[in-house]
């Protein structure tokens, strides 16, 4: 398939899409036209320079006027389209009303296949080298042996069914039961699930009272109206205070210019979501902001082969997550940090 054909297809795909703002479309096309047609190199260099200066001087995304936002997005689209040699769209889809996103994960189903990790990397344009991954899957020993004397110091034993997963039921514990066992991040068996192991994926828990937001000195990271903690990558100063504050190890730093192959780059992006990041800024899971604001499930939910991941609107009592909260055995990871995560782990 020739490059031109593919471009055309992409354009058609765009037209089929639900993009409403025709003016932005026009701007986009202009940008691509400028990128494709070879303008005098000096002039291009000058405009690039001007654009990069304008990008440096732009203010916080939440404080921009609509026209400033449009200009910022047009600038980014032009730059990305040139860099990745395909038409890249940077959306600014607004947050839907009356929605608070929640996530539920069934640890008795998870088989530790790491497809969510892989899908997340592809969807969200994470750097391939050095590799950045927003989801970390932990392999743990099942908690059956909590009854044995030598393991008592690891925590109070509990009912055997829940104890299988090292999770205590009801009340409170002097010490954690679950995570007291051996945890492995780098397990690499031929096939999963392994005997006597359970898997515990951890990603951003989208806390209602996030420690990272509190720690950021410039409010580059903040809670969006749907309860997702987002980052304005162009406002982040790279001080890593948020990374230090996060008890879930959910934030990743771009230690170098992220390497992202052109073919693998996902061209459908959102300003606060998966647009390619730059060197020296923080990034993290946004529940695939670019997808969920369009109504789609996050990529990890769609990739999970066992249906362990559930996602929905916490304000809607009919949603899957609310039903899970109502009927299942639910716990939250490190609840004692009082960050009020909206990421729930549950068991059958």
């Amino acid at each position, binding site marked *: 398939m020739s490059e031109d054909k593919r471009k055309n*297809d992409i354009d058609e795909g765009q037209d089929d*899409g639900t993009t409403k703002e025709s003016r932005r479309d026009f701007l986009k096309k202009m940008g691509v036209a400028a990128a494709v047609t070879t303008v005098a190199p000096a002039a291009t260099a000058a405009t690039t320079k001007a654009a990069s200066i304008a990008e440096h001087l732009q203010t916080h995304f939440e404080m921009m006027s609509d026209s400033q936002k449009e200009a910022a997005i047009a600038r980014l689209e032009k730059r990305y389209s040139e860099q990745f040699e395909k038409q890249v769209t940077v959306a600014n889809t607004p947050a839907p009303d009356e929605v608070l996103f929640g996530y539920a994960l069934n640890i008795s189903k998870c088989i530790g296949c790491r497809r969510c990790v892989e899908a997340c990397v*592809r969807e969200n344009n994470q750097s391939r*080298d050095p590799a950045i991954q927003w989801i970390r899957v932990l392999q743990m020993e099942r908690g059956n042996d909590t009854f044995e004397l030598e393991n008592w110091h690891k925590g109070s034993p509990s009912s055997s069914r829940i104890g299988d997963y090292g999770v205590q039921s009801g009340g409170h514990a002097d010490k954690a039961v679950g995570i007291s066992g051996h945890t492995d991040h780098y397990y690499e068996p031929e*096939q999963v699930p392994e005997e006597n192991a359970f898997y515990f994926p951890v990603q951003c828990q989208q806390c209602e009272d996030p420690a990272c937001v509190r720690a950021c000195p410039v409010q580059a990271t903040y809670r969006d109206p749907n309860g997702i903690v987002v980052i304005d990558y162009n406002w982040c100063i790279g001080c890593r205070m948020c990374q230090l504050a996060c008890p879930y190890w959910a934030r990743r730093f771009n230690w170098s210019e992220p*390497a992202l192959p052109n073919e693998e780059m996902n061209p459908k992006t959102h300003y606060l979501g998966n647009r390619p990041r730059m060197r020296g800024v923080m990034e993290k899971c946004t529940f695939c902001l670019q997808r969920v604001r369009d109504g789609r499930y996050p*990529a990890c939910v769609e990739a999970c082969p*066992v*249906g362990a991941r559930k996602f929905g609107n916490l304000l809607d009592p009919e949603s899957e997550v609310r039903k899970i909260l109502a*009927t299942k055995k639910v716990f939250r990871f490190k609840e004692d940090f009082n960050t009020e995560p909206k990421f729930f782990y549950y068991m059958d």
Partner: protein
Amino acid sequence: MISPKKYVRATVFYGFFAVVTSGLVLQDMPSQATTPEDKSGAKECYESIKGATELVKKDNVVPKYGYPNVKCSPTTGAVLWYGDPYDDTEPMGDMPTFGDHTDGDFAQAVIRTRTKHLKTIIQNGTKCSGCHPAADATTQKNDPRELMMHQDIVSNATKLQHGRGAIWCFDCHNAANRDTLVDHKGQEISLNEPYKLCGSCHGVTYSEWRMGLHGKRTGEWRVGGKKRWWTCTECHNPHTVQEHRFQPIAPELPPALPRGMTKDDFKGASGHGGH
């Protein structure tokens, strides 16, 4: 007091050392990040059960969201990403209710038709009834014995684990019409709608599936939005489900170790966490 010559000489000397040190430092720099090749060229990958749920990557389809219809993992060949979650699906149709379960939202529910993807059918090029004509209908309903065929599906038919040995092929497969399934009431059920059969025994799971608590769905997150519901047999193989709920699969590659550390360093290095 100051002899300039001496200091010029010293400066040259130090400058030389500075250059040498800079050279050393440059050598210490991390190698330039190389862009890995795109290995996701695989045309075919599987969804949940390898060998049963193959999916073909289409080049010419440009759906509403994203570009190819699927993206596959270069390491395991598993589907990672759906450009179009409703690709190759059709409406689910009516949904039987057992008992007084609350209605799930299945107004816009779609499912993928199983018959198109069943390996046995595709390989033989005919339907099941092509090899098993209706004449076989005389076969006893509960008659465990060695099978001459389909040993790849059930290796030892005398010890069929599903139902803990209490049931036999024809408790689910329709002896009268091999292209369909049958429930215990003799009701004929399409191979595309296995939930109608499974639900007749696994009632609780079935109701949870209807509510969205069990099983996988792709599409829109809104209640009432268009969703692809994954049917029972897309995740579970009913013939081996007693041994393992899900077919074991190869995991994706582990994350990169922290820079400067090797696997040997990490033997037992990850340990007590979560405080």
